[in-house]
């Protein structure tokens, strides 16, 4: 009987955490529409999330495009279907691989960064100092960061997708002697509005999830330097898990309606 207690506690803690995250999310929406708006800090966070992650997203997207094309080409060649390569790569990149890989990279880079930054601010009483000066730290620190990730992740995904297609084109050009215009003509013929729209919408949710989990873990970080490490680490783990759940729900809904 005693052995079941830790399991029950873990389950209980899990549901408590879900409840707290939901409350945190509600508070975000409540504070989002209340004045004063922190535009300057929002812009700073957008710059941090967007510009500072751009290089990593571009390189990763480019390599994924290269690898996907190199790995897939032999199979398509066996069926004499190399001409389908631009269509196949573009649809798989834009619908699924681009958004999820970019979001996972950002969960690792941005989510952990937010978790560690806010966690360290909590531990060194900087958040308390904001509160006692009569300023709302939730609005200044949390709302701006969640909004920045929600707005910037979709843009990063677009750049990642574009670089993936460029990488794929380079391999096609080297191995199949396909021109730039021919390749991208095939790409744009293959992609439909129904591929782009759901994929773009879900990236907003990805961004929101990364910002939400990072801020939640950092804002309620336990005292001590260990707490900061745990906040950064669990921000990545929880955000990555949440990304796959959102992705599954998005694909499921898209499948029903489109």
């Amino acid at each position, binding site marked *: 009987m005693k052995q079941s207690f830790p399991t029950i506690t873990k389950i209980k803690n899990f549901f408590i955490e879900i409840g707290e995250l939901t409350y945190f999310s509600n508070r975000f929406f409540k504070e989002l529409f209340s004045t004063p708006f922190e535009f300057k800090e929002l812009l700073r966070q957008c710059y941090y999330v967007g510009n500072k992650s751009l290089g990593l997203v571009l390189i990763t997207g480019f390599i994924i495009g290269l690898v996907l094309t190199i790995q897939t080409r032999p199979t398509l060649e066996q069926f004499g279907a190399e001409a389908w390569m631009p269509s196949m790569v573009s649809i798989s990149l834009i619908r699924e691989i681009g958004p999820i890989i970019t979001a996972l990279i950002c969960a690792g880079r941005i989510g952990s960064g937010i978790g560690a930054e806010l966690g360290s601010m909590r531990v060194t*009483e*900087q958040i*308390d100092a904001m509160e*006692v000066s*009569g300023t709302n730290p939730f609005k200044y620190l949390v709302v701006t960061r969640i909004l920045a990730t929600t707005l910037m992740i979709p843009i990063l995904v677009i750049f990642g997708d574009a670089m993936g297609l460029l990488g794929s084109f380079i391999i096609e050009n080297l191995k199949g002697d396909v021109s730039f215009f021919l390749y991208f003509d095939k790409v744009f013929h293959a992609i439909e509005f129904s591929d782009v729209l759901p994929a773009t919408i879900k990236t907003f949710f990805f961004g929101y999830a990364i910002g939400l989990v990072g801020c939640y873990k950092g804002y309620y970080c336990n005292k001590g330097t260990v707490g900061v490490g745990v906040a950064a680490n669990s921000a990545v783990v929880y955000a990555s898990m949440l990304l796959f759940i959102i992705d599954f729900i998005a694909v499921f809904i898209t499948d029903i309606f489109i």
Partner: protein
Amino acid sequence: MIDVKKKPILEIKNLNKKFGDNQVLNGFNLELFEGENLVVMGKSGSGKSVMIKCLVGLIEPDSGSIKVMGKELTNLNQSQFDNLRTEIGFLFQGSALYDSMTVRENLEFPLRRHINRFKSHTNTKTLVEEALTNVGLLHAIDLMPSELSGGMKRRVAIARTLILKPKIILYDEPTSGLDPITSKEIIQLMVNIQEQHKTSSIIITHDVDCARVIANRMILLINGKNYIEGSYTDLNKSSDEKVKAFFK
């Protein structure tokens, strides 16, 4: 000696706070008078920091009454409480400077929301420079907190505390972690602030030298209760073993 007018600006009555099974504050009472420097001493874990955090709403007490300038804290809404907070400066033990901001930005931060407290012709730049001049650190205005020494950080934190011109200042271990010379400079700075701005202060400290220089009155906190109250001289002369232990 500072002339203390007998009018309480802050009153705590029967304050209780429990963390799990640990009763940290157990019916604590305090009155802070206008222009007074009140030193609260006690062992680590005796509830001193918890008590001053209750005063600014960082910790919610289980029961008891806290009145600041005649206003009962529990009756205030968030906006009223935020406005009242600007009347209370809080110096954190570790300075708590915002490490992603320069010294200037650290001081500007509280002003962003509360600049309307000042006359319309007063600008942020003037207030920041004035506050830094008061603590002798105008030259460090564009430095980052990581470029400052421990003593400089504490001075900047005092400047940030002063910038909204509070009527009450709460100091949480103002000299902890500082060398004796820097500690003396910080203590002198606190005395100067009191004389210039006529503030009332609660100082949480273990530093007997600090208490000797600055205290108009002292409270010894033991097991979450007021154990003894009096001037530095009274407590220093006490024959009570628990009191004597602090002055050895």
